[in-house]
């Protein structure tokens, strides 16, 4: 029986996984799939199934490979896939660009050649532990058809973007593994033990393991080793209850605890540095030790290449967890020295050596660290880039290194430290190109991170003493314009942009980022849309470079420009598509901007609950990722939506939250909409009107023409104040139909022209600005009624109600007009709103500096017009109007 048990430990049977294996066969055979993802809980058999797939593929003549993520390999980009890399790592040019495209392409060609064009079936065990650059390479190779990837991932752990990206494109097959059923567990026991098992033992195995295959395996091997599970007359018996413990981890610890000192040394070495060559291990320990470990099912020795590994990732985790740090360090450093002595030439070995030294807290080759940081940056893994650059000794740091570290710190939201290292970087040797990028990154950090636009402009201006060659100066101009634009000075930003010729693609791209927003803000919306489109095209052709915004920025700008152009439906559609893309790529800043723009579009459409949701999402993301400026903007939008929904308290809370962070100059006058509407919803109409007026004046002085139009129109909507003259002026200064529609509405409202108001409603409806359309229709109803045309009045009122139904609970004063048979005067409306909120006449009188008698008189008039007889009915009458 012993011979059979040995076979069992080395090749544990696989049971109940045939459907999954068939799925793998189909996926590999069809050519349509780039890989297979195996999901499941710990111990459910993901690794085992992946290896079985690999074996089947090997049996069918496929070349195969295996990469394993671990805490150690995750320390250095591409650490886990060192075995796949044909040549060495890419080396950055003096300007800091690592040619990853060439590196990946070279790897692909080498693999293609090595395997005669056959797909390399590659097991990536536990993808969540792979570093981003390794994933990028695997994703690239899989997408190119160079490898077929078999990835395992634990249920509940996030699947890395590259894997989920292939999945979304339908290029990945996927299986979800569950624990074994009782029948399958009994089948497994029978096959593993090679004979029947006594009923009590079978039940105990089931009760303890609940069908978790790894647990069963560890349990059986442990019980056999300890003599608790024995065969008598062809039937297996469990003499004791499970020895020791009933937890899987304890079980593994128990098994490893039983090992001899030599065997334990091998297991520890593998836990830290696997895979290791059989040849090396044979020189270090007697062969019997390795054989006994293999018999115990703790290590596997590959026949093909002689690579020795631990049998299961859980073993590695347990061993590492139990090892004193000092001992782990000693083992890692000794292995690094050994491998370095054996293979002095740079190449894949250099990567493993550096990884081990890093893990040991030692000092690896700074050149390897810098290259690693470049690769991490390419994969947008700023955490790793930061850790690697921080491990580079100060005397090895040049301008480029400081740029890498500073940029990573900025991306990670550590703005003070970013400022320090970038300022220091400007003193270190670097090319002019790198010097420029240090400036640009430092300016970005000062502006967006530290929220100090004046400091950002000062850094930009000082840099002009050092950076003098033509295209680079243009980039400084673009940078200055950016600070001006996004601190609330679009007019000045446009003036600076005039200086830029835009002869090279990079400068044109940077110019477009600022230009499209500045043009849209100042009312040149058609141009703005075109510039954003061209910017995206230029950026796409630019390739990957340091210190330039994410390409999605152009799409965000296009959304903004379309919104300002009154093309709300298109803006919403584009923003939703963009939001999907950046959510899958996890680019938080772009996610925030898309969400905020979606909130803005929804606000203008009158879909206020939707707006509230998007703004809340944007604010939450901005808070989580410490983007203070966007957070301020999003909270302003949130307060605006809440106030227009009639919830003054919630709106005030959003503004209070906003005031805990720094102010943000971008669209600052527009942000005042939130303050004004909150004042209005909090029954402070006079404050509201003053806030609208002041913000409109601010907008006018800085060139925010579309915002000025919005503010003046809302002043008219909330107070009835005549703003039609300036709105008409803005309509002729801007090319936006939305700005024109506002002017038309204001003029018609002032003239109480029923037909023109109805036409204004048409205009808004055509733009999908439903709330404004509903309000204009309500105004038309009032005007028709005043003119004695009750039939037209009723029709307009009905239309207003149906338009308002799309506004998700909007509670704006313009809607209340529809409830009145005769129009309420401005004063009456003001008092009715206060009374409907439950305020006593005395309090209303105090608030408005009127006598109680006057208040009651106004109320009586309003009751008559609204056809109600008490305060209680008032709220209902107003409610029915919305």
């Amino acid at each position, binding site marked *: 029986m012993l011979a059979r048990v040995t076979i069992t430990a080395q090749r544990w*049977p*696989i*049971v*109940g996984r*045939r*459907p999954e*294996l*068939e799925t793998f*066969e189909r996926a*590999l*055979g069809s*050519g349509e799939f780039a890989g297979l993802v195996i999901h499941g809980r710990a111990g459910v058999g993901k690794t085992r199934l992946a290896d079985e797939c690999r074996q*089947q*593929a090997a*049996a*069918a*003549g*496929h070349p195969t490979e295996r990469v394993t993520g671990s805490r150690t390999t995750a320390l250095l980009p591409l650490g886990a896939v060192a075995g796949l890399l044909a040549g060495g790592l890419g080396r950055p040019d003096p300007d800091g660009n690592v040619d990853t495209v060439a590196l990946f392409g070279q790897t692909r060609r080498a693999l293609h050649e090595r395997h005669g064009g056959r797909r390399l*079936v590659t097991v990536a065990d536990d993808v969540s532990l792979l570093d981003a650059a390794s994933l990028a390479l695997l994703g690239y190779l899989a997408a190119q058809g160079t490898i077929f990837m078999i990835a395992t991932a634990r249920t509940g752990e996030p699947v890395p973007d590259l894997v989920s990206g292939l999945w979304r494109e339908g290029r990945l097959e996927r299986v979800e593994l569950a624990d074994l059923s009782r*029948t*399958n567990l*009994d*089948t497994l026991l*029978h*096959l593993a033990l*090679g*004979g*029947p*098992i*006594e*009923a009590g033992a*079978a039940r105990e195995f089931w009760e303890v393991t609940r069908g978790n295959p790894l647990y069963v395996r560890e349990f059986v091997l442990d019980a056999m080793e300890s003599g608790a599970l024995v065969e008598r007359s*062809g*039937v297996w018996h469990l003499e004791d209850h499970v020895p020791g413990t009933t937890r899987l981890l304890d079980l593994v610890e128990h098994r490893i605890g039983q090992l001899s000192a030599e065997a334990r040394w091998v297991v520890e070495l593998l836990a830290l540095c696997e895979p290791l060559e059989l040849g090396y291990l044979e020189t270090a320990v007697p062969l019997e030790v390795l054989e006994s470990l293999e018999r115990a099912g703790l290590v596997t020795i590959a026949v093909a290449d002689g690579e020795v590994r631990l049998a299961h990732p859980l073993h590695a985790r347990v061993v590492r967890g139990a090892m004193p740090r000092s001992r782990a360090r000693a083992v890692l450093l000794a292995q690094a020295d050994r491998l370095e002595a054996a293979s002095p030439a740079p190449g894949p070995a250099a990567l493993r050596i550096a990884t081990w030294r890093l893990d040991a807290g030692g000092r690896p080759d700074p050149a390897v660290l810098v290259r690693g940081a470049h690769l991490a940056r390419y994969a947008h893994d700023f955490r790793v880039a930061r850790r690697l650059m921080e491990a580079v000794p100060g005397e090895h740091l040049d301008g480029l290194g400081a740029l890498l570290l500073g940029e990573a710190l900025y991306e990670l939201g550590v703005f003070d430290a970013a400022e320090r290292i970038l300022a220091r970087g400007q003193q270190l040797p670097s090319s002019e190109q790198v010097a420029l990028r240090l400036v640009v990154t430092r300016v970005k950090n000062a502006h967006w991170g530290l929220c100090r636009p004046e400091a950002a402009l000062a850094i930009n201006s000082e840099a002009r003493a050092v950076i003098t060659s033509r295209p680079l100066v243009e980039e400084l101009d673009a940078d200055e314009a950016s600070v001006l634009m996004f601190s609330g000075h679009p007019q000045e930003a446009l003036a600076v942009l005039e200086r830029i010729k835009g002869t090279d693609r990079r400068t044109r791209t940077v110019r477009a980022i600022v230009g499209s927003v500045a043009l849209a803000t100042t009312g040149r919306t058609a141009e703005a849309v075109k510039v954003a489109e061209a910017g995206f095209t230029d950026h796409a052709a630019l390739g990957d470079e340091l210190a330039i915004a994410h390409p999605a920025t152009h799409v965000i700008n296009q959304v903004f420009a379309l919104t300002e152009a009154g093309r709300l439906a298109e803006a919403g559609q584009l923003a939703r598509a963009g939001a999907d893309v950046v959510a899958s790529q996890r680019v938080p800043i772009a996610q925030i901007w898309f969400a905020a723009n979606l909130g803005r579009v929804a606000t203008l459409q009158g879909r206020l609950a939707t707006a509230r949701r998007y703004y809340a999402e944007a604010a939450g993301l901005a808070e989580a990722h410490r983007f203070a400026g966007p957070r301020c903007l999003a909270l302003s939008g949130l307060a605006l939506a809440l106030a227009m929904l009639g919830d003054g308290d919630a709106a005030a809370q959003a503004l209070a939250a906003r005031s805990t962070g720094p102010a943000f100059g971008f669209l600052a006058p527009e942000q005042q909409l939130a303050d004004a509407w909150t004042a209005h919803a909090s029954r402070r109409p006079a404050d509201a009107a003053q806030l609208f007026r002041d913000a409109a004046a601010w907008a006018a002085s800085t060139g925010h023409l579309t915002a000025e139009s919005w503010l003046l129109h809302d002043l008219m909507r909330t107070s009835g104040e005549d703003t039609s003259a300036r709105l008409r002026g803005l309509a002729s200064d801007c090319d936006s139909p939305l700005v024109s529609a506002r002017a038309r509405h204001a003029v018609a409202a002032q003239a109480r022209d029923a037909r023109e108001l109805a036409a204004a409603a048409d205009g808004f409806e055509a733009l999908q600005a439903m709330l404004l359309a509903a309000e204009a229709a309500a105004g038309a109803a009032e005007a028709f009624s005043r003119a004695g045309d009750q039939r037209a009045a009723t029709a307009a009122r009905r239309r207003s109600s149906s338009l308002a139904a799309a506004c998700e609970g909007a509670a704006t004063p313009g809607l209340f007009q529809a409830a009145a048979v005769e129009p309420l005067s401005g004063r009456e409306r003001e008092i009715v709103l206060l009374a409907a909120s439950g305020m006593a006449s005395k309090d209303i009188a105090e608030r408005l500096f009127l006598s109680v008698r006057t208040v009651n008189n106004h109320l009586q008039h309003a009751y008559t017009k609204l056809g109600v007889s008490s305060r209680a009915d008032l709220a209902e009458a107003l409610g029915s109007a919305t």
Partner: protein
Amino acid sequence: MTPEQIDLVQSSFERLGPQLPVMATRFYQELFRRDPALRSLFATDLTEQEARFAEKLAEIVRAIPRLDELLGHTRALGARHAGYGVRAADYQTVGNALLAALAAVLGDGFDGPTRQAWALAYNLMAETMLEGAASARPIGS
């Protein structure tokens, strides 16, 4: 399997006695009811097929206590079936048909523990046949 389960399979099989051909006929009826597409894999006249099935089943049931011999046998059987393109899902269907046929012929004698014992025995056969089939079938491109 437990020794008791092996007994249950063997003793219930013996109880079939002269009813074995009836059970075989019932098995194919149950099978084609569950998956009519399988019918085309067999000859129009099933008489011979039913006899072969009964014989094979008797052979397997007898061999259950001698695992090595049995598994060698079922693996080879699986490898022979590989060419037909039989998949894991088909094995499931066959298993259900077998349990239904046994239940129909044995009646009350086919109780819960007997059913569980047969289910396990069948699963053991199916897993080893599938393993045999997999190692015999070339895959991929």
